[in-house]
């Protein structure tokens, strides 16, 4: 049994006492594993020494914080107004709709379209005596008394005779 799988745990002192005892017994009898362990120990030490060496070099670099913070703020500023404008506009629209419905809802409910239709029909009827008497005109006329304000009685116009 060589220590191919456990040399790293041995170097990092993560083996249990029993595992460690087994590994050490093997190392005592196996020059190949001893050599491998010594090489890997050197390599791990070299890897562990890199950060402090790099720290000296990288620590001399100018701070990037001003540029980073400027970018963080720029993104925040770019995102904030769009969001707040959309939100404010939507909420304003909802508020206007609610106020309108609360104040005028009961008065307008059901009567407004009929009134407009009726008024237009009356005008058209008066100015264009030959306008066809359509089903919608008749319906509007029938609804007129419910509209809430007085309207002139519809003028009877001669209907065009059946043509071809």
């Amino acid at each position: 049994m060589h220590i191919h799988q456990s040399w790293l745990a041995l170097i990092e002192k993560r083996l249990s006492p029993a595992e460690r005892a087994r590994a050490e017994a093997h190392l005592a009898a196996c020059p190949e594993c001893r050599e491998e362990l010594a090489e890997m120990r050197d390599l791990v030490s070299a890897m562990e020494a890199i950060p402090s060496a790099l720290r000296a070099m990288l620590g001399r670099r100018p701070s990037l914080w001003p540029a980073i913070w400027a970018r963080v703020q720029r993104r925040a500023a770019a995102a904030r107004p769009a969001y707040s404008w959309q939100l404010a506009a939507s909420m304003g629209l909802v508020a206007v709709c609610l106020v309108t419905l609360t104040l005028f809802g009961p008065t307008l409910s059901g009567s407004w379209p009929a009134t407009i239709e009726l008024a237009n029909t009356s005008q058209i009827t008066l100015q264009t005596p030959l306008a066809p008497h359509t089903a919608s005109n008749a319906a509007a006329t029938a609804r007129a008394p419910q509209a809430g304000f007085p309207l002139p009685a519809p003028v009877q116009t001669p209907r065009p005779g059946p043509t071809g």
Partner: protein
Amino acid sequence: MMSDPTVSAENLKDWIARGAQGDEDACAQLYREFSPAVLRLSFGLLNDLRDAEEVMQDAFVYALRNLRRFDPEKSAFRTWLFTIAISRCRNKRRRKWLATLPLSLLNAEPAPGSPREVEALLARRGVRRQIWEALQELSPRLREALVLRYLGNLKYGEIGQALGCNAKTAESRVRLGLVALRGTLKRLGVEAEAELAELSV
């Protein structure tokens, strides 16, 4: 293993909470505390200081804008930052791979922190020659594991979180990475000796 100064859990929690509200001082504290490690990690993965600084900037801009997304239940703050940086390093490497024009054709200034400069610096501090070069020759998967372990000073569980694998796999990658590193160092050593022999002829 040498590590960066560590901040207390209470301070870190406070900085993250205040940073999430846009507090510049708290964000600056997070930057001061963690940027050296993020830069070192990115440099170890990219072997180019300009690229590493760019990745570090991008990673911090993203992290500071998304502090609310950090979940301390899932990972340590440092591991979260490293995960962001690794993802950006991978993108950077991919883009570099796709780039066809060498920088020399664009009259770019020589990049600071060249591999030779790093090797000289490491040698002055007693670190084995060619180790940086050998590290850069490893496959990305093994290099990431080694860089997170030795330059990022992460435990195996944290390496697993950053790389999306379990602690056991992370440890295997580190072990295999070290074996591969030893092989590369031997090859580079043989090549260097052959080069020296040619020069002396």
